[in-house]
């Protein structure tokens, strides 16, 4: 045998490091996980021995994830910064992976050429590319690579029995354990057990002449003879798994993961969710799909039998929710916690040596000969070309996945945000990034400021987060009701978390921020909008933390790096010298068991051809279906769906192309009409579902009814549109719909408005704000307040007036008591006007929102509804309440230009026209509806968002359906425990407005003959998306 340096391995390493090493600079930072590891790396760089991290989730422990990779990034960051650390670790991972797979292939096939082919194929295997360049799972890669390195040593220990090998094997396993916890545990099951099986098989084989003669009895006897070594290795590795990351296990026991399962694509049914099927099945398998019969055939030969079983198991588990088997095998609990993509990863990695073997046989082995003899040389070359072509295509496709369908928002320049947080003590409060994607981890790594959000959901402690299947608050819009619901809780009661600043990179969240009482501060140079909330106290200087004993901190800080040093010292010559050029006199024992590649099994060749044909047909059907689904104008339904899809993605040119070309609507006109529409539906809604029904159809015309449902940050909107369609040149087109023809009376008009500016600090000083620069809190007066019970919910409703001479930002906190026992505390959310001009009044309602689905048994709603409300569970009925109202001088969002121009009260609803008389374009109007009983006492407050905005001097129609309040339990008006800015409301009332004219409140009440009420009052709050 050739003992020279393996040229295949050298080329694989060279190509691998150059290919992956250069491309990670363009991919790694926008992967899902890399920046999280970077954040952890930063933690270790600053606090090596302190596991508590304050940056995320109001504090969490980093002992929830094995530290080796993070600590390595931290260590390397001392040389060239965090990103240097990240990329260096990634490159080390690439080298380890290529050498690891080489050694694994060597053990498995006992052929250096095959192992060399495997190494080259591994470099370009789609599963590795995806794991590195799309997912960025560095610990997983490093853990797996080291495990692969350990396999030959394990083989040699059990086979030969020299303690040297045991030490080698265990030292490598220790590194695996400290870099990724799941890999060694499952690695034991899926890699080491089959390996042991293979060793026993080999040992049995030595006693007879061929594998065929190995029978169960012999196998069992050999097993018994090797039993001691197996057990000693097993115990040793078990001990390592426990000891090396002991603090992790202790932490897991003390802080069990209370997080409810978060949906993950790998658990989807891949036929239903084709995108998951692509990412978690098709891509990782890639080219391997075509040679599956060969892989199965080889793995089910006697020597590899146990690998065959393991491979089968992994393949099945990797199919996620497509079949019920994985769920049955893992059990409901494990199925919902584990991400199943790792099984596919392992399966495809396990198959790589066989793929290498296939490649070797095809390119220079017996398969080449076999095909040439049967079908001729040309056919083989074409086949080879096809294989190469597919292989290259899959590599290109996987690498460019992130380019064509970005998983992350555009790269955000962090510097302006970091500067903002450092200025003026802004880091004394917590912040919340919205729409940052995984880049939030990069922001956290660079600043001292803390956020309530975080990117490692297993470590969360706040019940508001753990009870919801939300990855991050930051991307809550992708998680429907739970996401927006979670976010709303943080935005409504920010005082609880000392949350004062929100960095919004996604306009989608703006309305919810506004209606929760937040205000825009300014736009940073990088386009990020900063929102702030008034009346939030700064963080205390001492924050709580959960301490762990010193021995755990020492273990955590020292063992992982220790394992690397140890493994490095005793394995260095094995990894490098053994791998590249063997100086050993003889080859390792496993070299004896290679099979000669003579005579390719003809049946397999046939089956493979058949299988290849089937695969091509399956792919063909898939592509055809995709084409039909995506062919935009092939049917009325398609074109309507495409039209709404284009509108949804704001691709207006595309939308225009679906309009009837013979209609008189020009593209300019269409674009203009689009440009002037604003509002909840057109600017903040995401199309959730569309169902197109054909109501009538002839050969060339059709009428459709499009039932659309839109998700907005505030609520779900269902709207039905009707369209007429025509068919021209075999293509269907939508007839353009009408637009608002209204012509406002004034071409140019002028309006005087009162505007405000608060200097904040008049002196530029880093000290505390000067006493005289602090404005007095505006005085408010609560006019009425009471507890009301409606449909089982207890709420506090009332009316409040800003009786000061300056505009006020109002925060209302209500607390319910039952015999002096505090039951619940919450703030008024959107059922009030948060910004009041001097002497303006608002009705308000404080809902007591519970944390959704604390009770696991409760069934979660399947559909998305951001307006979903979880009432707090009360054991006792509250009988008293208090109300703390705080005013702060407001200077923005004071637009009051919308009038109720027309009203028509019907039996069960009221319809009317709003008129925007002012200068600002109102993006989202909110109607506040107060209900009164026959004594003109307030009994309920309701709200309705209008889906369309109102431009200046324009009208907007609304229609509000009355509630049935006949079941309502009215409460007594009680102002005893009402406080404004910490002072008693009664005292303020007596002093500031002693002669209040109460009948003014009745003036705007509209008599209605309603169910349980006699009057209503309408108020309007307006969100302005782009203030002039």
């Amino acid at each position, binding site marked *: 045998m050739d003992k020279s340096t393996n040229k295949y391995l050298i080329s694989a390493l060279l190509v691998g490091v150059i290919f992956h090493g250069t491309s990670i600079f363009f991919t790694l930072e926008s992967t899902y996980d890399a920046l999280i590891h970077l954040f952890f790396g930063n933690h270790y760089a600053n606090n090596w021995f302190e596991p508590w991290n304050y940056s995320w989730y109001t504090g969490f422990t980093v002992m929830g994830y094995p530290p080796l990779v993070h600590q390595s990034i931290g260590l390397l960051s001392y040389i060239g910064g965090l990103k240097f650390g990240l990329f260096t670790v990634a490159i080390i991972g690439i080298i380890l992976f290529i050498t690891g797979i080489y050694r694994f292939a060597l053990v498995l096939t006992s052929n250096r050429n095959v192992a060399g082919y495997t190494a080259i194929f591994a470099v370009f295997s789609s599963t590795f590319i995806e794991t590195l360049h799309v997912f960025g799972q560095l610990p997983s890669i490093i853990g797996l690579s080291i495990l692969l390195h350990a396999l030959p040593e394990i083989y040699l220990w059990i086979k030969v029995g020299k303690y040297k090998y045991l030490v080698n094997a265990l030292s490598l396993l220790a590194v695996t354990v400290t870099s990724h916890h799941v890999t060694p545990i499952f690695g034991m099951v899926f890699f080491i057990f089959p390996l042991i099986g293979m060793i026993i098989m080999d040992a049995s084989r030595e006693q007879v002449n061929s594998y065929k003669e190995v029978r169960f009895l012999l196998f069992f006897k050999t097993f018994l003879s090797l039993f001691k070594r197996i057990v000693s290795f097993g115990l040793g590795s078990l001990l390592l798994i426990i000891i090396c990351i002991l603090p992790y296990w202790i932490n897991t026991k003390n802080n069990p993961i209370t997080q409810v399962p978060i949906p993950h694509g790998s658990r989807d049914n891949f036929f239903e969710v084709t995108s998951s099927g692509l990412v978690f099945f098709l891509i990782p398998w890639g080219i391997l799909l075509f040679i599956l019969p060969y892989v199965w055939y080889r793995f089910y030969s006697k020597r590899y039998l146990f690998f065959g079983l393991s491979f089968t198991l992994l393949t099945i588990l990797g199919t996620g929710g497509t079949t019920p088997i994985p769920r049955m095998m893992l059990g409901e609990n494990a199925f919902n916690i584990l991400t199943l993509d790792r099984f596919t990863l392992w399966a495809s990695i396990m198959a790589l040596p066989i793929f290498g073997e296939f490649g070797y046989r095809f390119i220079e082995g017996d398969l080449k000969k076999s095909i040439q003899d049967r079908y001729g040389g040309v056919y083989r070359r074409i086949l080879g070309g096809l294989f190469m072509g597919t292989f290259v295509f899959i590599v290109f496709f996987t690498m460019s996945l992130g380019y064509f369908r970005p998983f992350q928002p555009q790269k955000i320049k962090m510097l302006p945000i970091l500067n903002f947080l450092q200025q003026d003590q802004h880091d004394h409060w917590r912040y919340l990034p919205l729409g940052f994607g995984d880049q939030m981890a990069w922001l956290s790594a660079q600043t001292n400021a803390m956020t309530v959000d975080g990117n490692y959901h297993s470590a969360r402690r706040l019940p508001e987060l753990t009870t919801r299947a939300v990855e991050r608050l930051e991307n809550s819009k992708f998680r429907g009701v739970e996401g927006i619901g979670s976010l709303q809780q943080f935005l409504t009661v920010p005082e609880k978390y000392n949350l004062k600043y929100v960095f919004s990179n996604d306009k989608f969240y703006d309305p919810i921020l506004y209606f929760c009482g937040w205000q825009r501060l300014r736009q940073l140079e990088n386009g990020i909008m900063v929102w702030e909330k008034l009346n939030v106290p700064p963080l205390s200087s001492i924050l709580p933390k959960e301490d762990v004993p010193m021995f755990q901190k020492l273990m955590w800080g020292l063992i992982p790096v220790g394992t690397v040093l140890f493994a490095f010292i005793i394995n260095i010559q094995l990894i490098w010298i053994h791998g590249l050029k063997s100086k050993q006199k003889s080859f390792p024992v496993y070299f004896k068991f290679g099979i000669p590649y003579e005579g390719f099994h003809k049946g397999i060749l046939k089956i493979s051809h058949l299988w290849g044909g089937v695969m091509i047909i399956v792919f063909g059907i898939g592509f055809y279906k995709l084409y039909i689904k995506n062919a935009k104008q092939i049917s009325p339904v398609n074109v309507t769906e495409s039209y709404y899809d284009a509108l949804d993605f704001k691709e207006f040119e595309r939308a225009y192309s679906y309009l009837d070309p013979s209609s008189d609507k020009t593209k300019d006109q269409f674009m203009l009409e689009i440009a002037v529409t604003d509002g909840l539906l057109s600017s903040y809604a995401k199309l959730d579902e569309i169902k197109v029904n054909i*109501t*009538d159809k002839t050969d060339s015309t059709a*009428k459709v009814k499009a039932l659309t449902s839109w998700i907005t940050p505030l609520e779900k909107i269902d709207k039905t549109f*009707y369209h*007429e369609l025509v068919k021209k040149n075999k293509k269907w087109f939508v007839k353009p719909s*009408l637009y*608002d*023809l*209204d*012509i*406002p*009376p*004034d071409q140019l008009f002028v*309006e*005087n408005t*009162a505007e*405000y500016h608060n200097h904040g600090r008049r002196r530029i000083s880093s000290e505390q704000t000067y006493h*005289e620069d*602090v*404005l*007095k809190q505006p005085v408010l007066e609560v*006019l009425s307040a009471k507890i009301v019970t409606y449909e089982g919910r207890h709420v506090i409703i009332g009316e409040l*007036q800003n009786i*000061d*001479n*300056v*505009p006020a930002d109002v925060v209302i906190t209500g607390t319910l008591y039952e015999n002096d026992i505090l039951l619940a505390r919450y703030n008024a959310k959107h059922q009030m006007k948060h910004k*009041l*001009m*001097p*002497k*303006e*009044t608002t009705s308000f309602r404080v809902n007591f929102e519970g944390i959704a689905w604390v009770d696991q048994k409760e069934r979660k709603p399947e559909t998305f509804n951001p307006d979903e409300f979880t009432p707090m569970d009360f054991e006792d009925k509250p009988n008293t309440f208090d109300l703390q109202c705080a005013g702060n001088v407001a200077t923005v969002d*004071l637009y*009051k230009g919308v*009038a*109720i*121009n*027309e*009203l*028509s*009260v019907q039996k069960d609803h009221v319809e009317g*026209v709003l*008129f925007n*008389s002012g200068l600002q374009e109102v993006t989202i109007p909110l109607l506040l509806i107060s209900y009164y009983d026959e004594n003109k006492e307030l009994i309920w407050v309701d709200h309705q968002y209008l889906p369309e905005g109102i431009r200046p*001097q324009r*009208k907007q129609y609304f229609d509000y359906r009355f509630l049935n309040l006949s079941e309502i339990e009215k409460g007594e008006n009680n102002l005893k425990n009402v406080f404004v800015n910490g002072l008693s409301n009664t005292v303020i009332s007596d*002093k*500031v*407005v002693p002669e*209040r*004219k*109460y009948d*003014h*409140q009745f*003036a*705007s*009440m*509209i008599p209605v003959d309603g169910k349980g009420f006699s009057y209503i009052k*309408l108020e309007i709050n307006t969100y302005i998306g782009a203030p002039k």
Partner: protein
Amino acid sequence: MKVKLRHITPLLIVLVLCISIAFTAVLEKTEEVSAALITKKTMFNAGSIIMLKFKLNIPSETQLFVHSSYGSTVINPDTHQGSQFTIPSFIANKKGIVTYTLFYQSKILTQGEIQITSNETTQIYLESYIGPPSIIAGGKDYTMHVVVPTDAYDNPLPDSTAIVMKHQFLETEKERIIYSKDMIGWTNIFSYNPSGRLLLFSKVNKKVSKEFSVDVFPALPENFQIRSKRKHMYADGNQITQFITSEIKDEYDNVISDGTLVDFVIKDTKGVMLHTQGSTINGQAIAKMLHPDKKETWEVKAYVQGMAESNTLSITYTQVLEDFNVQFNNNNREIIIGPLQSFMEQLIPDGAMVRMDIFKEQKKIDTKIKTTSEGIVRFLLQEGFYPSGSYDIQIKALGVQKEYKKTILQ
């Protein structure tokens, strides 16, 4: 008996012995260290160097424990085995009583106290506060001015220090002398009837404070008048009517604060309350409403909620048209309404609302609303939604209603 030398000698020896024993005994007693304060002064000015000198019978290593309201410390003598101690400046700079205890090997030698008083010879500093920074006119509301005169070391000056407090408001300038008590001097300044800005400062000896300002806001608004302003009297649903308040003032004739919100409640002929609002600038609020699109009389009344109200204004809009054409085409499936003509027979401006209610068997099945373009509105009753049959159609535009019963759609 004759005293002989040989008798005396032993006696002398005994005596000498006795004395020497006695002497050594006495000497041993005087070995014990004792101390007394030499420094006579027990009152010091803050900031001066305070040295306490003790007299020690035997030079020895003593330490002085000093305690004041600012903390305690143990200090060593200025020189080795010396008996003079300098009180550290952080204590010496602060007014108050300082107790000291002299130790020798944890034995208390002597103790006592000295008093440090504020240093009036230094420059005087004024620590002043004012609050609230805004009050309401009318003499009921007040702001409080607090001054703490201190020496250069931030020690309050002794009680009864004279403080001159001055304030200016419009043409008034007032000065008052108060005497500090319990370290502070304070005064309440009540608002005057006019609104404006109060400027204040204080002065002790020659030291003056910086300027403080307090805003005096107007008091609650009083009742006011409203009027309307419009381009014409027609109910064309297009022009805008303004409702304008008189200059709203408080009871002291101050124009109320800019930004005060005035609610205009409009009662229409049906008795429904419409609503518009405006915030005041220089006391005047302007609110706008779109003209109604049918004959209408509005009763308008404005309020500053709970505080002031206006007269009731009645304003009438005349109908712009008496009748309009309706044309049925295409088997009654196309209905063209108009041209709608306004009061001078001109086409109504685009955007006038035309509403069509469609009834089938006395039940409303649909309402279609469209706005006019060049005076015309065209409704299409598509076959998909309106199967052939008999429908009742009701058309409303600009206050005119027309009914077409039993319209047959094919």
